[in-house]
């Protein structure tokens, strides 16, 4: 099951995590993709690295969130996913 964190409000991000597959797959949807897509993906991957997550499919629906918001939402979603596994 997917674990989610965040909202679809302006300046927020909705992150859902599935601890499956091989490696980290980030699927990003954002109006800001041409401007910040690269950075958003880096923020998500850095968070996974910090949490020692090696395999995950992560859906990111971004509504203009700043990096610290993206990291926090990702972290909480990953934690929730880990709880489900354990």
């Amino acid at each position: 099951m997917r674990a989610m964190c965040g909202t679809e409000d302006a300046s927020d991000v909705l992150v859902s995590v599935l601890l499956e597959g091989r490696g980290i797959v980030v699927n990003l949807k954002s109006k800001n993709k041409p401007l910040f897509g690269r950075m958003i993906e880096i923020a998500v991957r850095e968070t996974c690295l910090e949490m020692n997550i090696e395999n995950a499919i992560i859906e990111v629906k971004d509504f203009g969130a700043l990096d610290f918001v993206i990291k926090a939402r990702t972290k909480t979603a990953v934690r929730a996913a880990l709880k489900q596994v354990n």
Partner: protein
Amino acid sequence: MSLDKTFPSYIEGYGTVKPYAGPFATAPSAHRYGPKLSSSKPGDSKIVSNLEAALEKSGIRDGMTISFHHHLRNGDYIVNMVMDKIAEMGIKDITICASSLTNAHEPLIEHIRNGVVTGLHTSGLRGKIGKAQATENILGKPVVFRTHGGRARAIEAGEIKIDIAFIGASACDPMGNMNGVEGKSAFGSMGYPMVDAQYADKVVVITDNICPFPLSKIAIPMQYVDYIIEVESIGDTALIATGATRVTKNPTDLLIAKRAAEVLVASGYIKEGYSFQAGSGGASLAVCKYLKDYMTEHQIVGSFAAGGVTGYLVELLEQGYFKALLDTQTFDVMAVDSIRDNTNHIEMSASMYANPHNKACSAHQLDVMILSATEIDTQFNINSLTGSTGLIMGALGGAPDTAAGAKLTVVVAPTMRKRIPIVVDKVTNIVTPGDTVDVLVTERGISVNPKRQDIQNMLDQAGIKTLSIEDHLKLVEKFTGKPDHISYTDEIVGVVEYRDGTVIDLIYKVKTT
């Protein structure tokens, strides 16, 4: 001052490019354009049974330029009504010269794709049309963007010749005397078509309210009108004029407005008889709220407030804070009532408002102008037309006109909107040149254009903290990060004219992957 940009000397579909050279550097030398003479006889009738007949009588044919005004805003039925009929009649290759276009005009996309419309001159473009032009160049040539003053100037100079002007009127008599303040579809000032009516070869009035001759309140008189058609409705009344515009409750906007008011007071411009204009959105209008308190405390009465007039400005007029309102475009029901009933609420044409090439305009009489911005860069250039992703999604409006005219121009804006920084290294497109912009106020700080050392000194004396625009940018990028660059093709999809008819920027087609 000139810009550090180079433009081609000739642009296909636009013509010869005269580059921007400074806010008042380019003077006109030609004579004013004159439309064809007409004549009338006793017993003439102008009322035509339907739109098709009016188009035929006006001599509509392929390749003509026709004009519209956007006072009916999102409720407008006129543009679509006329364009659908023109398309149905099999006419092609029409250039539209509109004072602006709104979301109500999205059906134009089909007329563009079908070759009915092949030219577009406007102050703004939004929604689907803006996106389609920026990413696909659906027109196949650049849209010409003009300021409200620049449009009046271009028409008077004959740089754009209107074959037929279509004017929506909420009240009109059988000879064509008209206004926009009476009737079920009342929208207020007729500032934009006042110019069109005088310079178009043919003028067609579309109204849903024919009144007995003579109409008592006349915005545009009969001597300019050829034909009149009566329709059931010229627009959706709920969308023409909304309820009274209220000052924002957004705490960020209020903080910015409060700081901007402090800057205005410290700059010494808020004194007896001062004049003022502000945009109608976000923090701009809220600045009035804080100025009002200061004016009460120091018993200051201003001379005039101007622009797009909202109910909030009407309250200031009625409560005696300003002696008069000068109005080219009326924004809400309360302001429509006011312009109809209050003799100190004065209707003015776009030329009287902001044309730099006539003998005086109200924009040049301003002490203080408050502007908002989509982007502002370290040269204080403002963009209000294109988004940071290169899409066309805004308008020039009267910003370049009023910024050039006002003694003090203050930009109020949040530092970011949904991560997109407002303070940037270089704006996507220059609309209002930094030469004419004095102060930036955001929720994180105040920056003064180094050209205005006098203002900097006044703020320093008043103990108001400021930071350089470069530090302002660094502060913002600490939160947002530095955005990646958007890629463009070399296809020009828009020409941004400065108010004097020079070219200040070009919009290129966005590269989509």
